[in-house]
């Protein structure tokens, strides 16, 4: 999942609806100022049944956990299903960048990825969601009218690669349905 402006509220409302037994790991990028604190995981942890972690490099991904990218680092998924960090140049003026996470997840998980773009004020994530779609994954965007900043979901939708568009308050249930549906 990726978000920028307005992301804290959007993430809180979505994660709040996901059950503790969600059978997949959740990786999340929120654009933040690099000198910003590392508090986001602790805040989100109080708002969801899932376990929210601030992963270290090489942390193995586990179902039912939410992995939050730290400010200043790109967060990627590596081929051995671990978290991998990089200080390579910002992408779309952002580090962490949603595109970087989505490219790596699309590479490793192929059709087994659900890529989600939420509220935000730039177009980071649009290229990444295109790649997830090309790899056979499922893509979702927050409906721009329910987004605090609509640029990011609009840019994702404009690629023509978004399968589903939902209002913020429906997204948690839709994600659960999709994830549990794929399992069955």
């Amino acid at each position, binding site marked *: 999942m990726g978000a920028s402006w307005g992301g804290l509220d959007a993430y809180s409302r979505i994660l709040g609806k996901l059950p503790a037994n969600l059978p997949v790991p959740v990786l999340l990028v929120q654009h933040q100022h690099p000198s910003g604190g590392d508090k986001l995981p602790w805040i989100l942890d109080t708002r969801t049944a899932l376990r929210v972690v601030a992963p270290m*490099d090489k942390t193995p991904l586990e179902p039912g956990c939410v992995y939050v990218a730290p400010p200043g680092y*790109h967060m990627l998924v*590596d*081929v051995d299903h671990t978290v991998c960090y990089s200080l390579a140049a910002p992408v779309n003026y952002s580090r962490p960048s949603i595109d970087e996470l989505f490219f790596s997840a699309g590479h490793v998980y192929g059709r087994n990825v659900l890529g989600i773009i939420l509220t935000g004020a730039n177009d980071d994530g649009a290229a990444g969601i295109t790649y997830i779609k090309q790899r056979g994954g499922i893509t979702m965007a927050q409906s721009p009218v329910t987004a605090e900043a609509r640029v990011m979901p609009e840019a994702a939708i404009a690629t023509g690669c978004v399968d589903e568009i939902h209002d913020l308050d429906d997204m948690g249930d839709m994600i659960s349905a999709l994830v549990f549906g794929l399992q069955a």
Partner: protein
Amino acid sequence: MKTPESASSTVSDEQVNLEDIEIRLLLEAIYQLYGYDFRSYSKASLRRRVLHRLGMSGLPSIMAMTDRVLRDQQFFVTLLNDLTVNVTEMFRDPEFYRAFRDEVIPVLKTFPFIKIWHAGCATGEEIYSMAIMLEEEGLYDRAMLYATDIDKNVLAAAKKGIYSYAAVKQYSENYRRAGGKSSLADYYTAKYDGVIMDQRLKRNIVFADHDLATDQVFGEMNVIVCRNVLIYFDRELQQRVFRLFRDSLDMGGYLCLGTKESLRFSACEEHFEPVVADMRIFRKRQLMKRDAR
């Protein structure tokens, strides 16, 4: 599942697999011709950087890039700079330097002579930061600092110690937050459109090329600083490097990692104990027989 028309192009598992093979061939070519060994680097981030350079180069494929690398040394230098990610700052993570000053320096003051190794020093910002801190603590003249990097081009830049004004502005703020005792401006001279570090800061620094992936122990260090280098390695190479660090450190010697780097996923964790856990400062400990596994 519905498929929008515009997402008609697909990237199949076979295509991804071919790309992965092409990347491995590129790395093999680099290793055989230039001796730089990226074959055990983290696949995910290496892949992103190779594809980034491919996009910038306008070349049609990774194979074409490999061909270019084999015949065009200047192109290789550009790619090498991408692959090694030389992102650094002076007093990067000021809280780390503050912790080092508070917890490690007092112990170093009890030693007659100190050896410090900055592994993966890139363009040198962190080695100058350490040099400044040692000067301020009256330890510099008892210290020998080893600054190593895989990339000879960035080592040359580190040796020069010339940085841009824009960067130095940020560094001054870091320095202040790191508990610096005067002003960073006392340690550099304005020159052209940048600054040059006080050449005296280099009197006990040895710059050398060293590849953590292939080279050997660098002996009897009191401190090893290796921050945001290991994130680019895969777990096996990390394991090798942790062993190398363990064997290069004196008993009780300090290992300083980047704030997102962990010993937890290596078999070397038991050889170190945390000194300032959240700043990733560890100490090599004596393993008792009962601890040995």
